[in-house]
Every structure is written in C-alpha cells, then in structure tokens.
C-alpha cells in the first residue's frame, strides 16, 4: 500500500505549472488595499492619532484605530499570555507595532494614507535586554502581567547536581549564545477577507486556521461561527505563520466596510512585524566521571521574548526540558528564565529553543571528551538515551528510542571524514557531531487533533483535516495514512483541508506534531469509518451477526459476498446518515511540576544525530560546510522522500543559523542585509532514515520537521572548533569570529615555536 512509498506531494503539478494560488496571490481586482501605520520605536504613549491628512488622499476609504476594535484587544496563541495588541490601544510596547490601519482603493493610496496619518507619541524609557528588564525599578513592558517583566521561570530539578559535581572527574563550564533568527519563508504574509451572509471570511496563509478563527472572533467580539478562516496555500512557515499577522487587520476592515479587502506584507514589513527565533544566553556546567559518564548538568538559560509573549513560554519550557540533550543525566539543575522587553517580539521557530540549547549540550560533550582525553563520538554513544532510561523530567522512555542507531549510522561517515581531514596553507578542515532528542507536540499540555474520513455515495472517499500543509507535506502523509488504513489507493481519496467551515480543529502545524497527532486522528477516523461501514453492511443485509471485513476496497462477508461500500453508504443515506468516521487524538502526557519540572511532557520523542565536515579558508575566514550526514529516527517514514526533504531543508536552515543568520532590529530587515543560505552555501547532504517504531504513533511514525534542524548548527560549530583548535560557543560563526580564532590559533603555534 502507499505507506512507506515516496509519493510525489499533493499539489506538485499546480506548483510546477505556476498555477497554485498562495495567500500572496489572493488580491483581486476591486479589492480594497490595506496598509499599516507602524510606530517607529517603543515604548511610547500615543498622544493623538489624526487620520484627516490620510482621509484627504484620493482613494483612501477609512482609517482604523484601536477604537474600531469591537472585541478583545489582546490576542495570542497561548491562553495564559494573550497580550498582543494588533492595534495599539493608547500605548506602544514594541517598535513597528501597528497603531492605525488604512483602507484604500489602491495599494498606492493605502500606502500614501499610512504615511499621512499623523501620530503624536510620547516616548518613554524602555528595557531592551534580559538584564535591563530584570533590573530593580525597570519600567514594566506588560504591567498587566503578574510577574513583572519576568515572563516565566522554568526549573528542572532531579537528583543533586551540586553534590554530583563534587564527585566528577571532570567539570566543564562555559557560556554560549545564539542570536535572533528570521524564518524567511519565501512567501511573505498575504491574504484576503470579505463579507458574506453576515460573516467574515478570511483566506490567508497560516499554520493554524482554527486558532486564527478563534482569535479573530475574539478581536471582533463575535461568536466563532461568524468567522470563517480558509487556509490559502502557504509558502512555508517554520513557525513564523503560527502567530496571527495580517488576519486581524483583514477581518477588521472587512467587518466594518463589508467589502473585500486584501493585505500583503512587503518583505521588510514581514521581517519587522512578525516574530523571530529567540536568541538565548546559556551558561552550562557539566560533570562526568573518569569513564566519561555524565553525572550532572547545571544550566542557567535566559531569553528575551520582546514585548509580546507569543510562544515565549513554550520556548522557555522546551529549552529547559531539552537542556541535557539526548544524554542520560541523573542530576539536573536547570533554570530557564524569559523576560519581556521592548524589543520586537520573539516567538515560535522550528525547534522552540531546542536548536539553541543543542549548541550548548553538544559543545559540553566535546569539552568533556577533551577534558578526559576520550573520543567525543564514543562519549555520545556511551551516554546516549536508551530504552529504559529516564529523561531529566523523570520520564521513563519505554520504547521507540532510536538514538543509538542514528549515531551508529553516521559513525562510519564521521570516522572516514575524520581520517581524511586536511590542513593546507589555504584551508583547515574539521568535523563535528550533533545529536538531539525532541518531544513531539506541545509540552506537558493537551494538544489534540481531530479528523474525519467520509465514504461518499459516489464511491470516493474524502479526508477532512484542519491540519495546515505549509509545504512540509502533511496533506500527502495524512492521505497515505488514510489510504493505508482503508487499503485503498491514494487516488481514491479526496482531501478537504484547512477550512474552518468544513474541517475541525487539528491544532497547529508546529512542534513536529501533524504526522504523529493528526496522523493518529486520521487513523482513528478511518477506524471509525470502517466500523460504520461494517455496521451499515449488516444493517443493509439485515444480518446483525454477519462477519464483514473491509478489504481491497470492498466489504467482504464471511459467506463470500462482496459489497461496494458505496452501496452501504447510499443505504445509510436514506435514513439521513453520512458515513463519516470521526477521529480524535491527544497524546498522553502529564503536566510538569512547577517546582521540579518533573513529569511526562510528551508521549513520543524523535531522535537524531548529524555530523558535519567544514573547510575554513585561512585567508578570508569564510567557512564552507562541505558535507553533512543526518540520521533521523522518525519511527516510521510514511513518505521517505518527504522525510528526506525535511531533513535536507532542516540541515540548510541549520547552516544558516550556524554561519550567517542574525536578525538585528532595524538593520537587517530585507534580504540584502538578512542572508539565508543559497544553493552554493548548502552542503552535500546524506539523509539517513532510522525507523525505531513509536508504539503510540500511526504505523509507528513520529515527527521530523524540527529535529531536522536541531543538530546541524552544533555539528558545524564543533567542526569549525575542531578546525581552529578552539570551541566556537557563539552563533552565528561570522567572519569576525573565525578570524579572531584563526589569529589566536596562529598565536598559539608561534608560542610553541
């Protein structure tokens, strides 16, 4: 059947023909255009907003301000931190926050109107770093928040880290930092909204249509059913399209004006106005015994979430939970703290804090190996989490732990590269390793998905899912799961996706959760559909105890009869019943203890190991990542090519994070100044799939989207560090940082002479 086959992604034909219409392509002739008026800096009180100069511009129809928001001002995905004002209500907390919205007949008029709106600000002192935010008497970014500027503190306490450190043969201590990173999905945010039958329709790019619907309804102060959100084809997300962006503006304008409206960010506005990956400061102390067994980790992590929490809680918690890396560590003392500041907000991005802490936990392993004179690769295998081990939250790993196999798959490659390392006058080579574990789905919280599978009277089958495919391939994977479960060819199944009128909530396309969680929901729906068909067949044949099974697309009875399921469907339809299976899945979890961080935050974990080979140019200090081998335990590869595609994409995003990506507010807000890797920067990649089945996953599958990225930057940092003979503890590894290390390394050599 289709499971395990590398089917071409659904929608490929339209994409290669240029016929696919993205959120970006939604604007139509006759639409009103919207443009945002954004604050230049923050914090500030808004003294006045004068729309008159804008209204005087021909074509400008309306200027909206916070007063026009009929419902809740404060929105946000995490219920306890709904704190983002899409239309600043009297004060501005972060730069580029929207203070007014202009609707006009043309884009030019809308933009001219936005420039013309006169806003008077009273700028106030603010806080722009974790340290400033936590200083006594610091001005409060979100006075409504109970904890002052501290958004959250997460602790993981297990055993006695201080005592264990005293017994350690080696203790390594270092500080690591990463910078803010922009998602840079190729499609900038775009969409359209209109008024229809007393409801607002929003069709835009998104990673989470049902959340969008709920928050738009709150924004408009209307019941949820007055808002319909349709996910437009979405050109990448990586976490950047999880928060609302353009949708509240579209909905507000369409609601008031009862006309179709469209809005598209420029790349600059997209970079300025949407969330970023948090840069983290990480201080790690690790201890190991003489044999290299890790005894303890003591880690302090701080971050700046900007003026709005967005996914800051999730990032902070995940950073804490994953700080040990995928290594047995009996004694753990981690404190992660995240503060509000007046910087633009940081939110979800592929990995939620894990790519950041991976830099630290992998460098610590290398440092332990160096301290003990042991092989860093062997040390990883020795300490790698195995079945039966406990994580730092005390969770017993019962099954599906494929880390060792991941390491074993890349080991020959790593050894070969290491043996081949060259140092010439022109370049220095190095190899490095990164490994990770990653909890699938939300941390210690319910995050269900639902799905339906319907057998239609015409004999076709429809899969209904609210799961947003943003290019990663969930449409295809969910169809493959449904097809496999029903033993049908994929071509027999139609897909209805991402429309809040037609599908039910599948949760966010985030946390690598759609294959595992929505996949399970689809399995459940197919199970349920089958049951209805069997039941319906007995009902139709009026034989209540007949044994029937669904096989090869037919209902087969124990007495040899074969019935088209559609016949049963039509039979049931007579009594007004649709033959639609319902599925729901919410992973089994327990919340983390607030004091100790102990609990079972995830039902399943993915594992991975990667190694990277780099070449450092001794003249320019440019780093070329020549090769990466990436082994990922995905439980079961529903679509191996799609898995490999995710791995390769993640690796190159990791190259960017390692070597060039650094968002500097106000300075790197277009693609000339914010660089992501090109084809020439991308390494040769060997994607390797490891399948250690996850008992709770659909056909054993778990997730891969975020794991693909997490080990790459640490592997590259390790490789550059090896080439230069000194650890690289700060990302990105810029020309300046490499040159400094090159100079220092040569200084060392000179001393030895």
């Amino acid at each position, binding site marked *: 059947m289709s499971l395990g086959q590398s089917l071409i992604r659904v929608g490929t034909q339209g994409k*290669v*023909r*240029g016929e696919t219409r993205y959120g970006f392509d939604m604007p139509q002739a006759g639409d009103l255009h919207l443009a945002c008026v954004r604050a230049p800096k923050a914090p500030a009180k808004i003294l006045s907003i004068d729309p008159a100069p804008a209204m005087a511009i021909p074509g400008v129809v309306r200027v909206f301000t916070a007063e026009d928001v009929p419902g809740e001002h404060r929105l946000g995905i995490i219920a306890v931190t709904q704190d983002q004002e899409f239309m600043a209500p009297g004060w501005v907390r972060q730069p580029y926050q929207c203070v007014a919205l202009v609707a006009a007949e043309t884009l030019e008029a809308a933009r001219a109107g936005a420039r013309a709106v006169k806003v008077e600000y009273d700028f106030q002192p603010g806080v722009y770093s974790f340290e400033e935010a936590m200083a006594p008497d610091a001005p409060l970014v979100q006075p409504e928040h109970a904890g002052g500027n501290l958004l959250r503190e997460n602790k993981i306490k297990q055993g006695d880290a201080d005592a264990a450190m005293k017994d350690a043969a080696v203790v390594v201590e270092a500080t690591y930092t990463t910078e803010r990173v922009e998602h840079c999905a*190729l499609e900038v945010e775009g969409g359209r909204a209109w008024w229809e039958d007393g409801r607002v329709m929003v069709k835009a790019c998104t990673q989470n249509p049902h959340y969008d619907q709920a928050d738009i309804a709150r924004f408009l102060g209307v019941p949820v059913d007055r808002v319909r959100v349709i996910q437009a084809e979405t050109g990448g997300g990586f976490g950047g399209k999880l928060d609302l962006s353009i949708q509240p503006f579209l909905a507000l304008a369409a609601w008031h004006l009862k006309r179709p409206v469209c809005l598209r960010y420029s790349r600059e506005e997209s970079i300025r106005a949407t969330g970023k990956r948090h840069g983290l400061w990480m201080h790690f102390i690790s201890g190991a015994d003489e044999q290299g067994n890790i005894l303890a980790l003591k880690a302090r992590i701080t971050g700046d979430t900007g003026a709005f929490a967005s996914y800051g809680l999730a990032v902070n918690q995940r950073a804490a939970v994953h700080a040990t890396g995928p290594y047995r560590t009996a004694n753990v003392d981690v404190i992660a703290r995240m503060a509000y500041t007046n910087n633009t907000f940081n939110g979800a991005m592929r990995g939620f804090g894990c790519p950041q802490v991976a830099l630290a936990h992998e460098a610590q392993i290398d440092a332990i190996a160096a301290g003990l004179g042991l092989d860093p690769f062997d040390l990883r295998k020795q300490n790698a989490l195995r079945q039966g081990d406990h994580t730092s939250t005390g969770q017993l790993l019962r099954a599906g732990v494929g880390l060792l196999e991941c390491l074993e798959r890349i080991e020959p490659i790593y050894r070969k590269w290491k043996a081949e390392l060259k140092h010439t006058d022109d370049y220095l080579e190095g190899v490095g390793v990164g490994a990770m574990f990653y909890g699938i789905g939300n941390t210690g919280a319910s995050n269900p998905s639902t799905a339906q599978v319907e057998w239609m009277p015409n004999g076709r089958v429809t899969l209904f899912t609210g799961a947003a495919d943003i290019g990663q391939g969930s449409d295809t994977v969910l169809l493959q799961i449904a097809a496999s479960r029903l033993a049908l060819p994929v071509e027999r199944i139609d897909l209805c996706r991402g429309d809040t009128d037609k599908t039910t909530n599948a949760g966010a396309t985030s946390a690598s959760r759609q294959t595992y969680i929505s996949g399970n929901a689809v399995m459940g729906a197919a199970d349920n559909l089958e049951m209805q068909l069997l039941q319906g067949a007995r009902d139709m044949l009026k034989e209540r105890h007949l044994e029937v099974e669904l096989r090869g697309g037919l209902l087969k009875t124990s007495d040899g009869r074969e019935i088209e399921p559609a016949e049963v469907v039509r039979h049931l339809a007579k009594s007004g019943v649709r033959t639609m299976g319902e599925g729901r899945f919410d992973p089994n979890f327990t919340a983390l203890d607030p004091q100790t961080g102990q609990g079972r935050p995830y039902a399943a974990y993915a594992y991975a190991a990667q190694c990277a080979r780099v070449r450092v140019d001794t003249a320019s200090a440019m780093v070329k990542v020549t090769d990466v081998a990436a082994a990922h335990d995905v439980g079961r590869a529903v679509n191996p090519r799609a898995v*490999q*595609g995710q791995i*390769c994409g993640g690796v190159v*995003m990791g190259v960017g994070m390692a070597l060039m990506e650094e968002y500097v507010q106000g300075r790197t807000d277009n693609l000339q100044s914010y660089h*992501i890797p*090109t084809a020439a920067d991308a390494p040769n990649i060997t994607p390797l799939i490891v399948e250690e089945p996850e008992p709770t996953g659909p056909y054993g599958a778990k997730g891969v989207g975020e794991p693909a990225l997490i080990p790459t930057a640490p592997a590259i940092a390790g490789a550059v560090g090896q080439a230069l003979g000194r650890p690289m503890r700060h990302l990105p590894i810029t020309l300046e940082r490499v040159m400094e290390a090159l100079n220092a390394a040569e200084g060392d050599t000179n001393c030895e002479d």
Partner: protein
Amino acid sequence: MPLKFTLNGKEVCLEDVPGEATLLEVLRQRLGMLGAKEGCGVGECGACTVLLDGKAVDSCLTAAWQAAGRQVTTVEGLAQGETLHPIQQGFADTGAVQCGFCTPGMILTALDLVEQAPQPSEDQIRRAMSGNLCRCTGYHDVVRAVRRGAKYLRGEGEEQ
C-alpha cells in the same frame, strides 16, 4: 505609446505603463501571470525570475519597458497542455517542490542554465541556482531536479 512584447509566444499590448513599473508588476497585475512571485523586491531571492529573450532575469529589477519588443517567458508558458516541460517534469519527479513558492523562478533559471550547459555539473547547478532562494528543500532535491530536467531535455528519459 503602448508597451508591446511577446509573452509566452503571444503579442501583448499595454496602454499607460509607467516608466517605473517593474516587469513583475505588469506580469502579475496587468497580465495575470501569477506564477512569478515577489519574495523580496530587491533581486535577492529570484522568486520573480522570468526569461527575457531566453535569459533569466529578476523581473522585480527589470523595468517593464525593458521588455519592449522582446520575448518574455513565464512559468505559465512552459507546459504544452497536459505535458509538462522537461524541466518542470524534473522538478515534479524529484520531490524538489515543497511549499513551491520558489519553484516557478527555480524552473526558469534552470531552463536558462540547461539551454547553455546541457549537462551541467553539480557546481554549475549550485552557482546558477544561487540567485533563487529556497527555505524548504535545502537545495538537495533542487540539484537533482535540475539534473533530471536536463536529462529529460536531452531526451534521455528517466535517471536512475
């Protein structure tokens, strides 16, 4: 004076095109060619790539009037009905299409490359494609796609 050029083999004639209008704007807004995308507006990402007299250009950096009297090819002009262009087929067959936003531009750049170098090396492919950013694929499958498309274009059928 109307602006005239050949779009995907057909003459087009447009009135009132301002001098500062980009070819991308005219293609998208006046001619409905939505396959050309805008990813940055400053010639960095290549999502707006079209062929001008057979050569890849960033249509966001090209004034519409620069196309006067020339041949403009967009992704919409490649397939012959049901049959994809060999380069499109190469992209479709290799999994090089994820979100697909960069794909039309990628295909046109690849076409320019392959017209010039029918059997491009990996290094040639990576250099030529470096003006087309992709955030999904890591370019791994893009390189395979260009190779495969080149092979189809040479009439050599499927690559194993």
